[in-house]
């Protein structure tokens, strides 16, 4: 147990360093690159004294380390500032958009796993068989389709031609659960179709390798039926690559589902990010970047903890 805690502790330290780097990096990048907040607010022809006044108001005239320090201090207390463009507190803006992104991400992962798990297990079990070959070719094809194209295709077929689902728009879960799921289906399905082939391939190849291990032969020699061997013995050691990639995807999806959110007009964190960038709302941008980074760190830690649960050798080895 102590070993596990130490392992997770070390990983946490590394990831926190990453988080810090991310924040500093963003801060610096926004400082050094062209494009100014004041330009956005006041326009190109602003008078110098107006610019100076605004800068003083926003605290932009103080030296860089001091500004960064103040921002970090506030952030630790949960205050990410208030966007000078929209007047909205950054934390509130994120909080409004977060449920959309989370719902999208969860739904997409569930759909992706629902597709990838059974097919991956079967393809790995009967390596080289018909299902395996069909599924491999299909995955290859699907992976070649850019996700925005996929989204448009799904809209074309399922929303426009068949009218089974709405093309765009978002209904919050709290308002109407059924409609909410319905409005989320196409975007989640698009994401799931993008991720499932990767999960499937990873699971299949890991499972096929595991099935060649001696302890699987031993399990057969004990008279265990195939399904029990697959699910109880072979599945767990084969999940590592899958979980790693899933973790990366979940971490990225919170802010990274920009394309999907744009195609399906979903007010998620990704859209918030894009707007902040294009409108030069650097304060919001800084806050959202920190949030995404923090999410990534947390997800990574959870995945690492999962590793040590799945494979008891790990905590011993790294201890």
């Amino acid at each position: 147990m102590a070993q596990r805690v130490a392992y997770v502790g070390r990983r946490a330290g590394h990831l926190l360093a990453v988080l810090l780097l991310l924040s500093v990096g963003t801060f610096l990048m926004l400082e050094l690159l062209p494009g100014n907040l004041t330009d956005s607010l006041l326009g190109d022809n602003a008078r110098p004294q107006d610019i100076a006044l605004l800068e003083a108001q926003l605290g932009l005239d103080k030296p860089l380390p001091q500004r960064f320090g103040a921002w970090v201090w506030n952030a630790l207390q949960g205050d990410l500032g208030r966007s000078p463009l929209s007047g909205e507190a950054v934390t509130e803006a994120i909080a409004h958009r977060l449920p959309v992104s989370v719902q999208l991400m969860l739904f997409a992962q569930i759909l992706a796993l629902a597709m990838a798990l059974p097919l991956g297990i079967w393809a790995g079990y009967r390596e080289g068989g018909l299902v395996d070959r069909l599924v491999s070719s299909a995955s290859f094809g699907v992976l070649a389709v850019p996700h925005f194209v996929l989204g448009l295709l799904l809209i074309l077929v399922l929303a426009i031609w068949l009218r089974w689902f709405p093309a765009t728009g978002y209904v919050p879960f709290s308002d109407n659960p059924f409609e909410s799921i319905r409005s989320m289906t196409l975007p989640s399905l698009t994401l799931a179709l993008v991720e499932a082939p990767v999960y499937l391939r990873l699971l299949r190849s890991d499972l096929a390798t595991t099935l060649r291990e001696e302890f699987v032969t031993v399990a057969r020699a004990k008279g265990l039926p195939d399904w029990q061997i697959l699910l109880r013995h072979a599945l767990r050691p084969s999940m590592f690559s899958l979980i790693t990639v899933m973790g990366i995807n979940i971490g990225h999806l919170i802010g990274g589902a920009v394309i999907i959110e744009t195609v399906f007009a979903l007010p998620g964190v990704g859209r918030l990010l894009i707007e902040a960038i294009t409108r030069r709302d650097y304060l919001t941008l800084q806050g959202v970047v920190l949030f995404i980074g923090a999410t990534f760190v947390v997800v990574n830690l959870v995945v690492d903890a999962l590793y040590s649960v799945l494979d008891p050798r790990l905590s011993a080895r790294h201890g």
Partner: protein
Amino acid sequence: MGLPLVWLAVVFVCAFGADVMPFPPPSDMDFAAAEQGPSLAHPLGADLDGRDVLSRLAHGARISLTVSLIAPLIGLVIGTVLGLLSAYYSGLVRTGILAVVDAMLAFPSLVFALALTVVLGPSVQNVTLALGIMSVPAFARIARANALPLMSREFVLAARTAGAGDAYIMFREILPNMVMSLLTYALTMMSIMIVAEGSLSFLGVGVPPPTPSWGSMIAEGRESLERVPHVSMIPAAAMFLTVLSLNLLGDSLRQFKSGKSGGLS
């Protein structure tokens, strides 16, 4: 194996020969023919403003190919150097590089490229640069993963004993052994780049108009998807076929490489 190469060759020829081919100029608007499907005058139809789809497709291919050739190159060069350095040296160099790479990987890559493009100003060069930088962490990781096992091999030790300098060992001894693996990944990266550029253009932050790009063509056809799907779907099909061909090529390259070094079966 012939088909992907044929398709890629067609794309290549169209892209770089677009100006000399008998296409109407891509910005020529022929309102009479607007939104029509394939016809004699417009073999792949016309878009919402009457511009010839085939011509725009060919010009757009130029963007896609340029980006997908140059951006991975940027990533390959910078990433390989970083990866090699982080494998060869330990201590601050290694920790520093790894931390930066991890920080970049923590961020959704498309958003990163998008931010860079917006901040730098949309143009072909900036898009290429942004995408190139976006691919650096992946290449760095792969270069490092390939270099690490090579570090403990005897020829490295031999070179060091013979008095070779660090740079020599890294670039003349270790690097040549990694080339195949890196190039294979570069091929994969090419197809990722095509999609990435398409995504950026689709979002409206890629190559600015009037230069056609497959991504912006798809975006333009979005509102009228119901009426005239071909405006979006034809460039989409082109993108799909190109990505598929690159992936198939990369796959057979991988099989060839592993068959070679895999020994007898």
